[in-house]
């Protein structure tokens, strides 16, 4: 495609949808006078001694390493740390906006007690002593009354030292209810559990990948560890590195990821599984799959006979009979020749990896579709290979004994009888609260989470939380969920506190970052960890004994002792050291830069952390823990679980005994209900990845740059669809689903599929920052629907109608 830019084109390109600044009506002389009059209004920036201090980014789970410039007591600049193994000196726009978090005018400034009601809260500032003793006394009373298990803690889905601290607290206290927010990787994680039998976080060795098929994964818009993915992208296209990795994006919308991919394939919504199986069809019929790998390391590829002598359908038979090329072309709306070509490319370039299905940093896809996509990785032999799909290495931390606290056999509230898979089902909590089954909930403690805003059933959360006798929330900003609390405990933001982070999502290596505060904590805020330890001390007994740490720093220092004892890995360092350590370690040598745990601690604080730069590929026993000790196209794990669930087949929509129940297959797509002709698919954009960041002006300014949409939600609609509905670019329109209605500005976008509209996540707060309230929250419109296998929220299947307001 050739492209010429002329001046007119360029101006159109630069000015976009916004109107250029008008230049008439002001005389030169007038302006000159105006200017002189304003000279006194200049902003004077105070100076001071300059320092560069290491820190960690707190704006997403990737926790990139930072170098922060301070002038006296002020932090004035955030930059990537070149030592950090995830970001290597780069940083995404979210991280760079971090200073607006620290100095945000709408931060919480003191502990707050709700002296009004749940429905109409009135907040009163209280002292920390009062806040802590309120929580601690409540917890002590509940524990004394044998209701410890009725305390629920909700946290972010990270697996770091903080989560270990909280889990340890709860275990000693006597509650099984450590619940976490959903992650965008939940579906693929389910597939990895069903097909590989492992629960370790899945990861991708993207830098080494030669060919990447992304099934609607928003790789460049916040998925996984954004900077790590972007760095890999830069390397794929580094002319000096020689070969270019081909990256194909398969999804209904022309996303920014699709725009930057080598090729975009427009897919009918929800047909990712069919597309993956169509590619499998070509790989199988043309013999392009890794036959040796499939023979040696997989189960259920061919038809097979079980112990009872019954023959079962294998993956090959399923694909060859039901996902023939032309059928898949009809199902997916992708031309057969495109599927054929992609499959051939996928089969002929190694390592070739498929990621998906449709997922963002918070929204997962469908487990069957994820199994279909993951099966392509087995066909290309890319499991636990360089450039392939790997399992995140684990930190060598000692698992400490936790003293048993009373009756510990209470079920977790997010484990439902219908779903019993790794990943948690927080969405099911409101039902447990409202039904008081299996037991009532007496207290909810929230840490930096906002389910009322971030989950499709947020409204149900709001209702159920009305019923909870006690709620406390650790947060830096007021939010929709915290506004339901009795106590709001303001936390310092990242730069003001001890921080810590383990391996970020989808990153292959074991990582532990640690950073001391860069500047003093602002306002009357305190580290949640310090509060938790103080509460533990107050509770005393087993709880106090389980958490004998003075403060968070002491706890982190204690854990670094574990890392030291492991006698492996190295402190963050230059790329040269990293390459060197890798060379040496692969040959069995370890050359540490420290000789005592104290030295390690000091070096970690200075360099930002510690990691294992070597990954040992092809350790098959670790990679496949299924009943067959192989990758299972036919999931025996699922079959065993389903054998005691007679209603499972019906929930999936198949007959009991159908082998497809346990094989990857295309799940039924949702039919549009009458009167709701358009499909609403929520999207995540990088500046507001994870639906967070709307409170920061820097990010609001750039969030909708592809449409020059700033500071507000936009509804992406295909120009032809808009024309039929009488909608022009920029019109205010109503988007209505059976669940709700929202008013938003329509933006005509050639990258939207004619029958699909999109709304970005992260807008439309009703609480908190002055800036976060702009736009609408699509979650309020989405159907509450869960997949039958793992109970993951399916957010991409809501139908709406759109009309001019």
């Amino acid at each position, binding site marked *: 495609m050739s492209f010429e830019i002329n001046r007119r084109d360029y101006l159109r390109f630069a000015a976009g949808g916004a109107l250029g600044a008008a230049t008439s009506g002001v005389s030169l002389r007038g302006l000159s006078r105006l200017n002189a009059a304003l000279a006194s209004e200049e902003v004077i920036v105070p100076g001071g001694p300059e320092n560069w201090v290491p820190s960690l980014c707190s704006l997403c789970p990737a926790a990139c390493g930072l170098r922060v410039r301070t002038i006296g007591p002020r932090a004035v600049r955030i930059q990537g740390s070149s030592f950090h193994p995830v970001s290597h000196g780069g940083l995404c726009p979210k991280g760079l906006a971090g200073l607006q978090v620290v100095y945000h005018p709408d931060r919480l400034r003191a502990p707050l007690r709700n002296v009004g009601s749940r429905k109409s809260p009135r907040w009163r500032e209280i002292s920390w002593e009062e806040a802590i003793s309120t929580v601690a006394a409540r917890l002590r009373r509940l524990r004394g009354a044998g209701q410890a298990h009725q305390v629920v803690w909700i946290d972010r889905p990270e697996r770091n030292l903080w989560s270990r601290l909280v889990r340890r607290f709860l275990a000693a206290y006597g509650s099984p209810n450590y619940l976490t927010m959903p992650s965008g990787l939940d579906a693929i994680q389910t597939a990895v559990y069903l097909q590989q039998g492992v629960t370790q976080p899945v990861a991708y060795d993207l830098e080494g990948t030669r060919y990447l098929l992304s099934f609607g994964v928003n790789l460049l818009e916040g998925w996984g560890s954004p900077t790590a993915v972007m760095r890999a992208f830069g390397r794929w296209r580094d002319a000096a590195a020689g070969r270019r990795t081909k990256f194909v994006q398969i999804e209904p919308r022309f996303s920014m990821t699709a725009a930057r991919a080598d090729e975009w394939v427009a897919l009918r919504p929800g047909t990712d599984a069919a597309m993956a199986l169509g590619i499998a069809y070509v790989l199988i019929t043309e013999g392009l799959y890794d036959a040796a790998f499939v023979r040696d390391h997989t189960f259920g590829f061919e038809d097979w006979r079980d112990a009872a002598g019954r023959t079962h359908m294998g993956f090959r038979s399923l694909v060859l009979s039901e996902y023939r090329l032309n059928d898949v072309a009809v199902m997916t709306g992708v031309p057969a020749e495109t599927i054929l070509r992609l499959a051939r490319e996928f089969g002929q370039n190694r390592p070739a990896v498929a990621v998906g299905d449709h997922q963002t940093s918070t929204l997962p896809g469908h487990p069957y579709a994820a199994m279909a996509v993951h099966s392509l990785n087995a066909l290309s032999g890319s499991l636990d290979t360089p450039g392939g799909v790997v399992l995140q290495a684990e930190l060598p931390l000692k698992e400490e004994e936790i003293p048993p606290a009373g009756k510990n056999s209470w079920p977790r509230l997010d484990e439902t009888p219908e779903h019993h898979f790794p990943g948690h089902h927080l969405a099911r909590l409101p039902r447990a609260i409202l039904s008081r089954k299996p037991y009532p909930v007496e207290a909810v403690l929230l840490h930096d989470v906002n389910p009322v805003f971030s989950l499709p059933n947020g409204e149900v959360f709001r209702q159920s939380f009305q019923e909870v006798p006690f709620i406390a929330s650790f947060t830096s900003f007021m939010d929709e969920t915290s506004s339901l609390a009795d106590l709001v405990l303001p936390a310092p933001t990242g730069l003001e506190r001890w921080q810590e982070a383990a391996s970020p999502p989808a990153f292959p290596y074991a990582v532990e970052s640690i950073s001391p505060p860069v500047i003093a904590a602002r306002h009357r805020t305190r580290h949640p960890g310090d509060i938790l330890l103080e509460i533990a001390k107050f509770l005393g007994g087993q709880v106090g004994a389980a958490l004998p740490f003075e403060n968070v720093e002491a706890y982190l220092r204690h854990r670094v002792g574990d890392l030291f004892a492991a*006698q*492996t890995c190295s402190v963050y360092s230059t790329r040269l050291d990293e390459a060197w350590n890798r060379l040496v370690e*692969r040959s*069995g*040598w370890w050359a540490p830069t420290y000789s005592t745990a104290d030295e390690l601690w000091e070096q970690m604080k200075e360099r930002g952390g510690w990691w294992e730069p070597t990954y040992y590929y092809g350790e098959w026993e*670790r990679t496949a823990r299924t009943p067959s000790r192989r990758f299972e196209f036919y999931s025996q794990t699922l079959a065993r679980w389903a054998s005691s669930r007679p209603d499972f087949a019906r929930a999936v929509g198949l007959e009991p005994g159908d082998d497809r129940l346990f094989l990857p297959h295309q799940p039924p797509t949702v039919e549009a209900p009458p009167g709701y002709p358009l499909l609403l698919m929520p999207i995540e954009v990088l500046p507001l990845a994870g639906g967070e960041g709307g409170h920061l002006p820097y990010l609001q300014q750039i969030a909708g740059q592809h449409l020059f949409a700033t500071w507000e939600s936009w509804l992406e609609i295909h120009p032809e669809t808009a024309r039929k509905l009488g909608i022009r670019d920029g019109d205010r329109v109503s988007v209505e689903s059976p669940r709700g209605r929202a008013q938003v500005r329509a933006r005509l976008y050639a990258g939207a599929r004619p029958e699909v509209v999109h709304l970005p996540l992260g807008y439309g707060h009703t609480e908190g920052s002055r800036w976060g309230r702009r736009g609408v929250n699509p979650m309020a419109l989405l159907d509450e629907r869960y997949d039958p296998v793992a109970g993951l929220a399916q957010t991409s299947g809501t139908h709406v109608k759109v009309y001019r307001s």
Partner: protein
Amino acid sequence: MIAIAKRISIEKHGIPSLRPLLTGVCVLCLATPLLTAQVQGGGAYFLSGNTKAGMQTFFDKGCARCHAVLGEGGRAAPDLARAPGGNLSAAELVAGMWNHAPAMWEKMRLQRLAPPKFSEEEMTNLFAFLYSVRALDEPGDAERGRRLVAEKRCLECHSLAGQGGRAGPDLRSWASYRNPVSWIQAMWNHAQPMQAMMAARGLSWPQFLGNDMTDLMAYIRTLAANSKGHVYLRQANAETGRELFRQKGCVSCHAIRGAGGSRAPDLGRRALPRTLGQLAGLMWNHAPAMWASMRAQQVPRPQFSNQEMADLIAYLFAERYFEMAGNAERGRRRFEEKGCAGCHTAGAKADTAPDLAGWRGGGSPIPVATALWNHGPLMLEKMRQQEIPWPRFRPGEIVDLLEFLNRGQFSPALAKAKP
């Protein structure tokens, strides 16, 4: 990895006795001070290199565009960690470089790459890097390992993933040990019962050649479920190794370049395998013979901790970096035979070839490598014009030549001037 800081004493008139005095030879040592000071005329100089700086040089100068080390780097030229085989001294490395240089430059010319220039310090580091990295064992080949388990009949005694005998321990229990030296050491210390058991079953002593051990390890790792953690060996210290060589009684039979016992091979003169793991394997292979000889002489059989074994092996490696002293007379003959004397004449003018009277590299081959890169392409061009073939050297010849040059004997006038 192997940062070599070695002091070679040179007798008064520049005749290196090459009686090596190890001053903190540190194998697998990361933060080594960079010692490049040459003490002129004082009778001693330091030869050393910073291996990590050498790695930087390797990447910065573009070597990695074509060459790989242990699989990391370019594909166009040989992996310098693997080819040429064997444990090579600095002189051997230089000889290899010299002989391949014209072909290498030709390839670079075709790809429009300018031959890089090096300072002596960079070359020193580069050599330290190459020498060290060559001593590393590359990750094994699991598939080959699988065949080896059958060939070596390990499972006659050992169990592995539920198969095999019960007499020995399950091989997977060692899976977290990442260093082949650890494996050899574990076997070494349990060799006695193992030997008896094998004799009883009529099994021959297993031999570990080449990468056998790492291949076996790679295979066993694939079978080890959830092998948590990795056990590495700490950086080996050649200085400690030297001490151990004495303490454990090795020196009573083995010599290092003549110093020590004579009942067993001189380990300073013997060709060693390329990697540390392979050397450990070699030691294992010869163990029964060694023990028999020790029994005969009533020397106790030494036991090693795995770190001790690593240090010992590192010592032997560090020793090998430096060649034996050359022979000046042989060097003079080479100088004439190879046609060097045709251009490099005494008092030669700059437009032909430099007078090498000023050559003062001590016994070190590093300046040869530096000169080769910095002036070689020009020299090759001039030789082409005069239709002189590029001379090739064997490593020993390089050492002899150096010795000859170092004594300043090639110019009779100069030789006379010196006492």
